[in-house]
């Protein structure tokens, strides 16, 4: 959580609306105070007027939180698959490896020792392998993120129909919070 978020004043939806909303949908190690701060930062910059404004703001905050979570999971999957690429299973053998071992068994002098050593992999190559190994999960997560972004944009458009200024503030506040935080986490 960035320092600017921690210092924000906590803001909650009005009581007449709050009774219909459940607790923040948190999972894993997500903390309630982080969600409330995240929500407050967005709410304080928009200053919703009525219940419909609040519903749209809640949508944008919720969807931004989901996008942030999915991005985090995606990053974890890539890291995990990169580790798999770095330490492949000893049982995994390709057709080319098998052919090479057959030749080496018949004529060991045909290969210098250094040719048979595993090559040190470059960071980019490891990242690429990580992507390839986790391609299915990454693809599914990307689709989910796209779908949340679509709904987030729809909510922003609905807000725009009610108040252009409020929609702009909402878009900026939610993007700043999600992108800012994610960049910070990546660093």
């Amino acid at each position: 959580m960035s320092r600017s978020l921690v210092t924000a004043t906590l803001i909650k939806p009005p009581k007449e609306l709050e009774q219909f909303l459940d607790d923040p949908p948190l999972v894993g190690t997500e903390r309630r105070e982080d969600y409330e701060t995240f929500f407050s930062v967005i709410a304080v910059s928009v200053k919703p007027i009525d219940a419909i404004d609040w519903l749209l703001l809640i949508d944008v905050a919720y969807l931004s939180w989901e996008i942030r979570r999915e991005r985090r999971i995606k990053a974890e999957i890539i890291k995990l698959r990169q580790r798999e690429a770095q330490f492949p299973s000893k049982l995994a053998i390709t057709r080319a490896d098998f052919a090479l071992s057959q030749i080496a068994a018949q004529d060991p002098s045909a290969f210098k020792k250094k040719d048979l050593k595993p090559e040190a992999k470059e960071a980019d190559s490891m990242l690429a392998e990580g992507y390839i190994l986790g391609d299915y999960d990454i693809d599914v997560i990307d689709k989910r993120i796209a779908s949340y972004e679509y709904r987030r944009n729809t909510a922003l458009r609905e807000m725009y129909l009610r108040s252009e200024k409020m929609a702009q503030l909402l878009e900026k506040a939610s993007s700043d919070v999600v992108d800012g935080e994610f960049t910070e986490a990546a660093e």
Partner: protein
Amino acid sequence: MSSDRKITANRNNAKKSTGPRSKAGREASRRNARRHGLAIDIGADPAFHEDIEQLATVLSLSSGAQKVSEHAREAAEAELDLTRIRKIRAWLFETLYFADTAAPDGMTELNDALAKLERYERRAFSRRKRALRAV
């Protein structure tokens, strides 16, 4: 945009529906309700009547209307549906991915379950959007 008259006509027509007719269809429909209850119209569930009316009143007042319209009720129903869906999504993440007891192939199961949930959320979201515009 659907008019009040059209919405009422659609609801009346829906009431005439016999639902699934074949034995397999009825069984599948029964299982839908048992899975997470999202296939059931929230408006038809007496447990939600009070919440729907109260939320519809809040939405109507917020748009300056003097009385609660069908659109406000529809928006309230869809909003409560969205709340249920979001709660189920968090539960799925928690049990299939984050929990210590999550299976090694939990990600695949999670992806399948979330894809099914997505359908309901998309529907509830656009239903609420239409209704809120008309409130």
